[in-house]
């Protein structure tokens, strides 16, 4: 089980990766694809495909991809077309919020949960409480 974090900003996913690994531990591979090849804000299909492959190479039998904004979905679609069938079969994509979803997914994965449970944990982030009850 590996995570692939996709953002328009390389800085954002680098920081998020650091946070995810510190919170959940390093047993779950976390690959990132942030920004464009020439260092601008945006997303890049080849970078996303490379990140998915690197999570698979790191031992992930399945990978869960999280996105920051909907426009990344177009690059992701192109990226999955670059993958072969075996690789593509290992990719799950979620609507989950990027930051909260990545943390919850990584912790869920770290306790040996199934991919379905990891996806559910990530997606529960959309409605999670953050502010303390007043």
């Amino acid at each position, binding site marked *: 089980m590996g995570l692939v974090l996709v953002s328009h900003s390389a800085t954002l996913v680098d920081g998020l990766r650091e946070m995810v690994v510190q919170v959940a531990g390093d047993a779950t591979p976390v690959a990132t694809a942030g920004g464009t090849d020439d260092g601008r804000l945006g997303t890049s299909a080849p970078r996303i495909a490379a990140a998915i492959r690197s999570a698979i190479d790191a031992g992930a039998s399945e990978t869960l991809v999280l996105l920051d904004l909907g426009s990344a979905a177009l690059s992701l679609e192109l990226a999955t077309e670059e993958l072969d069938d075996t690789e593509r079969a290992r990719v799950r994509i979620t609507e989950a919020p990027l930051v909260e979803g990545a*943390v919850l997914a990584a912790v*869920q994965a*770290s*306790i040996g949960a199934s991919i379905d449970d990891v996806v559910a*944990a990530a997606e529960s982030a959309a409605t*999670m409480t*953050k*502010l*303390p*009850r007043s």
Partner: protein
Amino acid sequence: MAEIQLLVIDPSGLHARPAAKFVQAASRFSSRIVIREDGREADAKSLIALLGLTIRPSSAITLAADGPDADEALAALAAELAPYVTSAD
């Protein structure tokens, strides 16, 4: 059901990293384990449930476990939380 009472002493309360470690530790046991705070209860094996409690400094919390490894689980979880809590018994 076995229970222990603890008082949160960490100035940040129970924040993300210790909460995640706690969930990982709880998940190693088969017992049903809950954490209670101020009348609310969260599944100790769910990070989202635990973070949803937003446990503040000086909160009194109860860990309760029910199952074949309940006592062992509570001892392990108290040890996991040791830097952040003190016994309230």
